[in-house]
């Protein structure tokens, strides 16, 4: 069914495959850039992934001007503003983000401040507030989950006030995203599982949310197919380059889907849980996904039933039964991941104190994701879902 109205946008050039990183200086050249600032973190450096990036510059006329490798787990306004000063001081003309969602979102924030000629990211809170042409920006993800390399949003924390703020604009996309299987090979099994479930959550929520549309649907379905085929392999055998590249593509496709269709109650709850209890985003999404699907079953069972073939569920003639089968298949996948790498199945397993549920419910209502959820979500509704997810699988 065609929606009465939708918008779709993705301007990112995607380079995916064996030794894709080697194209990095060439792509900088196409963007008219010569001096790069690299934004990464200690995890990436410790895993030796920066060596692949540095070796790509051998013999190139482009150069790495400065490497910032102290990106915090949650990107912050303070770090973004400091990096903007560093970028200007080193006379860089290009930003390269190497890492997970935090590095990519930090880079997006830095690009906002530099491109707009300002010195404080806070000025640009909200949606569509950017006017200037962004500076050259290349994203190299090292996880396969957030899809931040193709999304119009950056989530950056104001550490002084203890809140995470979304910045949304079509101007913050990288110009280029490079998916090189070498960059995700070192991810440990549980992080691979959590980030893979993050990608699956993006795809499923994008597929049934209020702003679903034919173009984002096609990306969501591709992501769901790839996750079903390759996630378990990538978790079981981390050195399987084909599975790693497939999962990187799944995360990217899911990112394109949800950047346009947005997400719903699962993300609303996951963001609030991350804020209150520091549960990793992929873990929280994995816990909430079947509960969120069930919550929307009444209004969306026909749409969820369309996913049945992707999960190996026999559709039959009854949409509600098929949709329930899809939810069961999601639960089965989580159990398998729990068996392999102990990916938590409940909030209790993830270390969330039951006394925090009311705060999570309250905070989740202020998350923009709730707007796009098909079913209305009140405080009482959110709390009811949380109570189930606390100790039930």
């Amino acid at each position, binding site marked *: 069914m065609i929606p009465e109205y939708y918008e779709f946008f993705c301007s990112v050039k995607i380079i995916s495959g064996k030794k894709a990183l080697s194209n990095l200086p060439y792509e900088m050249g196409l963007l008219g850039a010569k001096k790069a600032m690299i934004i990464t973190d200690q995890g990436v450096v410790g895993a030796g992934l920066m060596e692949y990036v540095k070796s790509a510059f051998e013999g190139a006329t482009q150069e790495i001007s400065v490497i910032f490798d102290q990106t915090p787990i949650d990107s912050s306004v303070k770090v973004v503003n400091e990096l903007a000063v560093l970028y200007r001081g080193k006379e860089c003309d290009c930003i390269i983000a190497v890492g997970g969602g935090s590095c990519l979102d930090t880079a997006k924030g830095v690009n906002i401040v530099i491109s707009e000629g300002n010195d404080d990211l806070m000025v640009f809170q*909200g949606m569509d*507030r950017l006017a200037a042409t962004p500076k050259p920006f290349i994203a190299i993800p090292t996880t396969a989950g957030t899809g931040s390399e193709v999304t119009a949003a950056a989530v950056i924390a104001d550490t002084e006030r203890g809140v995470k703020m979304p910045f949304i604009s079509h101007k913050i996309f990288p110009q280029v995203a490079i998916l090189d299987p070498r960059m995700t090979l070192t991810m440990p099994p549980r992080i691979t599982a959590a980030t893979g479930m993050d990608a699956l959550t993006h795809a499923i929520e994008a597929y049934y949310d209020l702003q679903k549309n034919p173009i984002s649907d096609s990306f969501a379905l591709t992501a769901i197919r790839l996750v079903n085929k390759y996630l378990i392999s990538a978790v079981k055998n981390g050195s399987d380059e084909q599975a790693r590249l497939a999962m990187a593509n799944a995360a990217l496709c899911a990112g394109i889907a949800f950047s346009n269709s*947005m997400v719903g109650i699962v993300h609303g709850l996951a963001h609030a849980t991350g804020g209150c209890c520091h549960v990793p985003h992929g873990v929280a999404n994995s816990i909430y996904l079947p509960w969120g699907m069930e919550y929307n079953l009444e209004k969306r069972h026909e749409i969820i039933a369309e996913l049945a073939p992707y999960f190996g569920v026999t559709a039959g003639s009854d949409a509600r039964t098929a949709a329930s089968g899809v939810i069961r298949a999601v639960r089965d996948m989580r159990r398998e991941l729990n068996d392999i790498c102990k990916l938590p199945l409940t909030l209790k397993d993830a270390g969330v104190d039951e006394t925090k549920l009311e705060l999570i419910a309250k905070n989740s209502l*202020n998350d923009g994701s709730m707007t796009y959820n098909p079913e209305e979500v009140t405080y009482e509704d959110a709390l009811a879902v949380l109570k189930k997810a606390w100790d039930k699988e």
Partner: protein
Amino acid sequence: MNGLLSSFKRESAYGSKKAVAHISLLALGSTFELVSKYSKELKKEIADWQEGIVLLLGVLPNGPAMSVKKENGAIRFLGMGMRDADLKVLFKNIDSAMMVLTGMMGSHTAFAQFRAIVYGNLGVGMQMSRALNIVQKFLLPSFMLNKTFKRPPEFSSEDMWIKAKVMAALTPKMISGALR
């Protein structure tokens, strides 16, 4: 001649839409202030709002727009016109604004369809959206609420009494607004 006529028609249609949006926003602002004094539901919703916060709802590029301020735990309607605000929710064009302000489209659908933008903290934007839904409950007829809300709102006997008070207070204001 035909060109002049069609240009006149276009300008006249735009002017009419702006007038309807102006009156609708006037009604919304006035109702927001009234309901914040009586409705426990709205009082609870705005309880966490920062005292003195100014919120603006308007239409790009040049209005109309209305703004409200939280004062002494309730809402004060500041009047019409563009002004500085802590949070601005702006419809991208007059047609998008008309759909929401005349009750043809719910605010969640407007956001889902990217018909409005937010300047400021999006969390506060969510709070404002929920508050406006409560205000609309007292402003719009039930058949519109049933059509545009994700879940039709429930009315207690106290709510019905508040709705009657809102209508009684609003009607003369709207008539004088329309005449102006």
